[in-house]
């Protein structure tokens, strides 16, 4: 049972992480190739505090705060660049993050932080906490989606210049998306740090950023349910693949390519197509 709980907790964390990127990339249309940096910021903040004896639940607040603060700074910087320039700038953020962490003695340098205390409510408790966090964040994103903010995000994602023309305060909404998204990643990071109980710079690199972006795109950009399905599926994939461990990355890479080639609208698009076909019949 313990093994299943670990897998399920990992899935919950991945879903939270993917939902947080979905706010930035899905809702607001700002591509981020560096979202793992914020997972890392949350993880490091929470891990350092909990090693000092702060209870896990309390560390959520500074972990989210720290990630959102850096997210705000990156957001302000990102206001100057668009499209592909933005993609590469955010990619730079994740390289800067790992590059800086590697060289800081306090943060454990190359080796990372080991011996993060286990949460006092045990594995099942951690799973329940993760599930609650996912649920809370899910409600938040559904609420955003349905509010005026959601409409503003949509218009910015569709056509930034027209949105500006309509009198939408584009920078304000972009920054809001960055803050909400990076705070979510920080929360996921705090959970992640206590799930694996060992973190290092390599856990938050470019590959992790791509994996989470892949979850959002395979799910269907902007679709909440599609992203949840894709994140749960893709994060559990390595477990199914253990038999073919040697070819794991080969299969993963080809899967990404295949998904883009044959179903570029993602799971969301596939489901809609099926529903539409049913309706026609």
């Amino acid at each position, binding site marked *: 049972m313990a093994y299943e709980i670990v897998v399920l907790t990992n899935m919950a964390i991945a879903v939270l992480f993917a939902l947080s990127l979905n706010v930035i990339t899905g809702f607001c249309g700002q591509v981020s190739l560096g979202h793992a940096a914020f997972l890392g910021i949350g993880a490091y903040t929470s891990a350092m505090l909990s090693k000092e004896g702060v209870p896990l639940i309390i560390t959520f607040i500074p972990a989210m705060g720290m990630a959102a603060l850096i997210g705000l700074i990156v957001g302000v910087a990102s206001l100057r660049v668009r499209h592909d320039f933005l993609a590469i700038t955010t990619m730079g953020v994740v*390289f800067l993050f790992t590059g800086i962490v590697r060289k800081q003695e306090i943060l454990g340098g190359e080796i990372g932080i080991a011996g993060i205390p286990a949460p006092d409510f045990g594995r099942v408790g951690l799973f329940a906490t993760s599930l609650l966090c996912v649920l809370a964040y899910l409600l938040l994103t559904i609420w955003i989606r349905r509010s005026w903010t959601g409409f503003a995000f949509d218009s910015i994602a569709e056509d930034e210049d027209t949105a500006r023309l309509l009198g939408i305060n584009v920078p304000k909404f972009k920054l809001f998306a960055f803050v909400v998204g990076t705070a979510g990643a920080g929360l996921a990071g705090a959970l992640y740090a206590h799930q694996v109980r060992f973190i290092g710079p390599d856990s938050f690199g470019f590959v992790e950023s791509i994996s989470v972006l892949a979850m959002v795109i395979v799910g269907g950009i902007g679709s909440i349910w599609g992203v949840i399905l894709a994140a749960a599926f893709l994060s559990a994939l390595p477990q199914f693949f253990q038999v073919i461990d040697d070819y794991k990355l080969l299969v993963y890479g080809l899967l*990404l390519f295949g998904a883009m080639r044959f179903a570029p609208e993602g799971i969301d698009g596939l489901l809609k197509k099926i529903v539409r076909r049913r309706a026609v019949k």
Partner: protein
Amino acid sequence: MLFFDLCIQGVIQGAIYALIALGLTLVYGLLRILHVAHAALFTLGGYIGVIVTNGSGSFLLALFTSMLIVAVVGMSSYTIIYKPLLNRAPLISLIASIGIFIASEELFRIFFGAYGLSYINPPLQGQIEILSGVSLSHARILVVVLAIGLLSGVGWLAINTRVGIAARATVIDPQMAASSGINVEIIRYGSFFIGSAFAGAAGVMVSLLNNLVEPTMGAVPSYKALAIIVLGGLGNVRGALVASLALGIIESFGTIYVGHLLDRDSIAFAFLIMVLMVRPQGLLARG
């Protein structure tokens, strides 16, 4: 002499970056796609270089074979990856390209082993003293000569030949170019051919300088080359070359002077972000 040494290091590194970045920037100019899988071609070039040199004993033959094979593989990457996705959002091709790149690293490992390959008799190891106290191996000099030769060759083609003019027209406005009778597809295949061949050459040269090829050798150059073409102003060939050289030199000085704060690979991105904050359109704007 440290200053001089660092400059030379930077120029050599910059020459390698320039060879890799040229293909990326050509592809971006034509298709508006960030071609991450380009780095897999660089790795493939390195492998072919080592295998052919070890098999035949001729480094020159290896260099040519590698450039030719990699060029053909590069053209097929256009057919397989990008052509079916041309009408999709650029993000779709980007993820597809990253998928292929991840898969390719694994393929190299499966075919050639996880520990990499080396030259049995590394060629071009003789030293030349270019200044008192500063000597360079033939291989290092060849990198710079090759980069200058190949890149100025392409520059000459682009300026003086009909094909070059057609290619530049296609970059500026594909529709207009097509309606003036230019076969846009041929231009695209040609750009993939040249860009990939250069990446192959860079792979061979890096394999020679490190005397090692391994499955993951493409990872860092692929991200850095993306930074370079953005730095140069996406799709701007001249800008990409300037940025390659600048980045090579900044990295070699940076590792010495700020190496205790940032590792080598993040210096490139720190520089990139600083430049983009001042000039969001890159060092040289599109033109």
